[in-house]
């Protein structure tokens, strides 16, 4: 057993006086210096004396029976320490999954998608491990592939999962349908009779990848007590733990988990990747094992955003009021369940967008296919719907001869509106105002690419590739708005835990905040320190590394962490404050009557009355003592949606953003340059305005990416991924990215801590349809799919 700890493990970060500041200030990241000096330890940076390298062998076909696996040649290779297959798994628990445990740790009998892990190798060098994996002989007998709805539900279709026992199975019409959620309200068919105009559309949304830059990676270190310590980049430590421990056959307290540096997530780290395999290899070899995916493997190593087919019918009266919406959203869940059921719930419940419509008929479902598994990605089901319903809104506006913004505003939901689920929106919903604001922003100058020396190609479609000097270039403008739920919905017990301690260090009061929140770049650690300063009146806050020695913080997803773990930190701070004041009363209460009578606050390191009188220094109060509280905190409960009608108070909060896109399209070559993507978003309360902008701008560009370039291409015949690399899966560069002016609105949601509203996802929804609308405006084309490729703009698809 290794005696020393691994190198580069996360250390606590103390942020001191320079960044004194509570909520509402743009304090700087506590991990900023480590990140700019290269010292911040990401999961792929970890190193341990005696460490081995793990590597996974993945299936080369999408759907096949495994006839045989022969690992003998791999084991014979010098430097190889272990080769594991399904038969080596230590317990009867051999699958995992977020909600449905349908994903094999290593394939058993069958592979269901291209790139499914079949065997795991540990060796002394990554190249040895790769060579060993290449010597494993796997014989496959290929099966027909299920790739879309028609092949999934065709008579006699092969079942992706036979003998389903999950709780969705009894309600679906075919075993290759994972989950189906209808939402019916009013009478859409009757309402259609009142419509003066009806528009229909079929839309296709391509498979998007999270494309976080830090590859899946982690280090598993076997421990003396037979347990294992896993240093890992993830979005939710405790969810990982719950899935890992049973497979290892260990109690949860023998699987210790510490969050290593996370190089972005965006939903792609909500599911397990190499966690279990690394632990298994470490326990088998008795040596620390590190696994780091390369970019190729990363495309197989996490779930993607569901590709979708969406069919919509919208009706409106001549005066521009929506009469009804009917829609059907078919999401391709791929081979394993992942988060698909919840994605279906979102797509259905948010399927008509932020509009008032009394009569709706919605159906959303996810398929089991042999395509790559799909699950969580920023926007989570609301993204695909937004692309389609916003295209419909533009179509309707055009039919009615109305301005698209004006038409949206006439139908915009507001506080007090009722959603198709029957839920009443009980906090601000400034949809019309966001549209007004984004429209009112100044337009970027025309022909911004002209310079004194001629056309600056860097500012034209095609960029550095010198494809146009202005020829064929047409400008277009488009608008879109979206609605995203915040937090986990449908009755999920969505809580977080915070442990806060207050103590005196070197004569100064310090707050220590310990949560299991996964900092994936969003700036949660910054906000926790701000909350502690605001609540406890200290300057110095120490953020402990996230690990499983403290209770669950829930997932860093669903725009929920500032709300829920922020709320937990605030709650724990308030309890600590009470304890501190109790100590103060005990020690000093006899010296001043205000201890007993006044409202007491902690400010600038002191106990003060609400009148501003200083009663004592915190250092004196806490002399020789410390206060520590750990508490769970939860937001208001939600309810599941009714299986048949979709009715129910399923969501806890909503987030709204609107975009205006200005694009220039080289109409002859079909190349697009987004000139500007202006955004207006309501954030309730900006706890850290700089971080809020970062979230909005980052989310906006992910939406831009799937509008014009990002798509995982899966061969429709073989179900194999065709472009698993950064050469052919393109994400926007800085030359593809426009200026992104942001107008932040702060209308408090009184149900939420500080009135805040989750920020991260909403901007990813509306930027895609805004860009598409602008491209439609420039080209006059219908464009019913995203991403739109040059072929679609030039009639050469």
């Amino acid at each position, binding site marked *: 057993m290794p005696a020393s700890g691994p*190198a*580069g493990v996360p250390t606590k*970060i*103390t*942020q001191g*006086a*320079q960044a004194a500041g509570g909520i509402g200030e*743009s304090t*700087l*990241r506590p991990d*900023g*210096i480590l*990140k*700019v*000096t*290269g*010292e911040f*330890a*990401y999961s*792929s*940076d970890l*190193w341990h004396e005696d460490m081995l390298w793990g590597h996974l062998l993945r299936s080369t076909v999408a759907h096949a029976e495994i006839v045989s696996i022969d690992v003998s040649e791999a084991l014979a290779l010098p430097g190889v320490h272990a080769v594991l297959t399904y038969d080596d798994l230590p317990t009867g628990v051999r699958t995992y999954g977020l909600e449905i445990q349908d994903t094999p740790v290593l394939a058993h009998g069958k592979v269901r998608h291209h790139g499914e892990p079949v065997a795991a190798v540990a060796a002394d060098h990554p*190249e040895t491990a790769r060579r060993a994996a290449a010597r494993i002989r796997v014989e496959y007998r290929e099966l027909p592939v299920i790739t879309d709805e028609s092949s999934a539900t065709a008579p006699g279709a092969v079942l992706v999962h036979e003998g389903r026992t999950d709780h969705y199975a009894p309600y679906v019409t075919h075993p290759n349908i994972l989950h189906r959620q209808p939402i019916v309200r009013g009478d859409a068919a009757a309402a259609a009779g009142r419509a003066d105009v009806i528009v229909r559309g079929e839309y296709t949304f391509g498979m998007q990848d*999270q*494309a*976080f*830059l*830090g*590859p899946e990676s982690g280090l598993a270190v076997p421990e003396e007590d037979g347990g294992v310590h896993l240093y890992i980049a993830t979005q939710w430590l405790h969810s990982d733990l719950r899935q890992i421990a049973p497979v290892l056959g260990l109690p949860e307290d023998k699987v210790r988990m510490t969050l290593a*540096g*996370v*190089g*972005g*997530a*965006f939903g792609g780290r909500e599911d397990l990747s190499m966690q279990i395999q690394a632990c298994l290899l470490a326990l088998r070899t008795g040596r620390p094992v590190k696994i780091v995916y*390369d*970019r190729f493997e990363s495309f197989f190593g996490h779930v993607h955003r569901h590709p979708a087919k969406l069919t919509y019918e919208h009706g409106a009266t001549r005066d521009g009021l929506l009469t009804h919406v009917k829609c059907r959203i078919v999401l391709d869940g791929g081979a394993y369940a992942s988060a698909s059921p919840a994605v279906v719930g979102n797509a259905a419940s948010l399927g008509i967008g932020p509009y008032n419509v009394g009569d709706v008929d919605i159906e959303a479902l996810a398929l089991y296919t042999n395509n790559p598994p799909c699950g969580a990605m920023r926007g989570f089901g609301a993204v695909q719907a937004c692309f389609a319903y916003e295209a419909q809104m533009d179509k309707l506006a055009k039919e009615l001869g109305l301005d698209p913004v004006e038409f949206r505003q006439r139908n915009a939901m507001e506080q007090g509106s009722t959603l198709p689920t029957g839920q009443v929106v009980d906090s601000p919903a400034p949809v019309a105002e966001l549209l007004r604001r984004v429209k009112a922003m100044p337009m970027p100058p025309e022909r911004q690419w002209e310079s004194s020396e001629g056309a*600056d190609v*860097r*500012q034209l479609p095609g960029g550095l590739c010198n494809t146009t000097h202005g020829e064929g270039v047409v400008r277009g403008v488009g608008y879109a708005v979206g609605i995203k739920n915040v937090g986990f919905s449908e009755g999920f017990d969505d809580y977080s835990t915070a442990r806060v301690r207050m103590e005196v260090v070197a004569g100064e009061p310090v707050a220590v905040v310990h949560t299991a929140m996964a900092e*994936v*770049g*969003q*700036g949660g650690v910054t906000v926790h320190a701000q909350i502690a300063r605001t609540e406890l009146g200290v300057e110095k806050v120490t953020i402990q590394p996230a690990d499983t020695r403290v209770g669950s913080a829930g997932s860093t997803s669903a725009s929920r962490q500032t709300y829920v773990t922020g709320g937990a930190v605030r709650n724990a701070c308030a309890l600590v404050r009470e304890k501190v004041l109790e100590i103060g009363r005990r020690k000093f209460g006899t010296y001043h009557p205000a201890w007993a009578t006044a409202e007491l606050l902690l400010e600038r390191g002191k106990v003060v009355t609400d009148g501003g009188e200083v009663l004592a220094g915190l250092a004196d109060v806490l002399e020789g003592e410390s206060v520590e509280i750990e508490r769970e905190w939860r937001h208001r409960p939600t309810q599941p949606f009714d299986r048949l009608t979709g009715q129910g108070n399923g969501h806890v909060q909503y987030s709204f953003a609107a975009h205006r896109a200005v694009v220039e399209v080289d109409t002859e070559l079909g190349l697009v340059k987004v000139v500007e993507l202006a955004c207006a978003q309501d954030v309730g309360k900006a706890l850290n305005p700089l971080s809020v*902008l*970062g979230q909005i*701008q*980052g989310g*906006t*560009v*992910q939406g831009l990416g799937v509008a014009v370039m990002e798509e995982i291409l899966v061969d429709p015949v073989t179900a194999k991924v065709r472009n698993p*690399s*950064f050469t052919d899966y393109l*994400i926007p*560069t*800085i*030359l593809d*990215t426009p*200026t*992104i002016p942001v107008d932040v609105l702060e209308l408090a949601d009184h149900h939420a801590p500080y009135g805040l509203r989750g920020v991260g996802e909403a901007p990813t929804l509306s930027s895609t349809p805004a860009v598409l609308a602008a491209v439609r405006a420039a080209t006059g084309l219908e464009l019913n799919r995203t991403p739109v490729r040059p072929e679609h703009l030039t009639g050469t698809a």
Partner: protein
Amino acid sequence: MRVSLTVNGRPQQADDVWEGESLLYVLRERLGLPGAKNACEQGECGSCTVRLDGELVCSCLVAAGQAEGREVVTVEGLADHAAGRRATAPGVGLDEARRWQPVPGEGARLAPIQQAFIDAGAVQCGFCTPGLLVAADELLEQNPEPTDADIREALSGNLCRCTGYEKIMDAVRLAAARQAEEV
């Protein structure tokens, strides 16, 4: 094989290097310098960017053996590299001393571009940050007053997935402005 090179001004040596290893692997796994990042290992993302004999390169595409005898600057050495560029005379000038501010975190010394990235909010997950810093520092070395289009062109080999690049633009503008004030 053995590879000897100079990294951030210090002679370094790595033994038992596999011939197919990249400079990136040697830096990260053999020399304890994980600052250069392994995001794509195909030259498409720029997160492994270092200076090789002064040139901006993707260290994932430099074979370890090609770095033999060369000089490498990584993000870990960027502060010294930038300081070396600015130093006209040894020691701290009076003006510089007056501007000195305490920096949290063991008094880390930062290159102007590093400080600007922190101040402008250009760091989120931070995985692209080391490569961007090395590239942006080189830009400001070559072109102290870049236009926005110049910045975008110079950084077009560095992908960032978190920020949408706006704060990165701000950071480079900020560093350029601070650099101009100093002169």
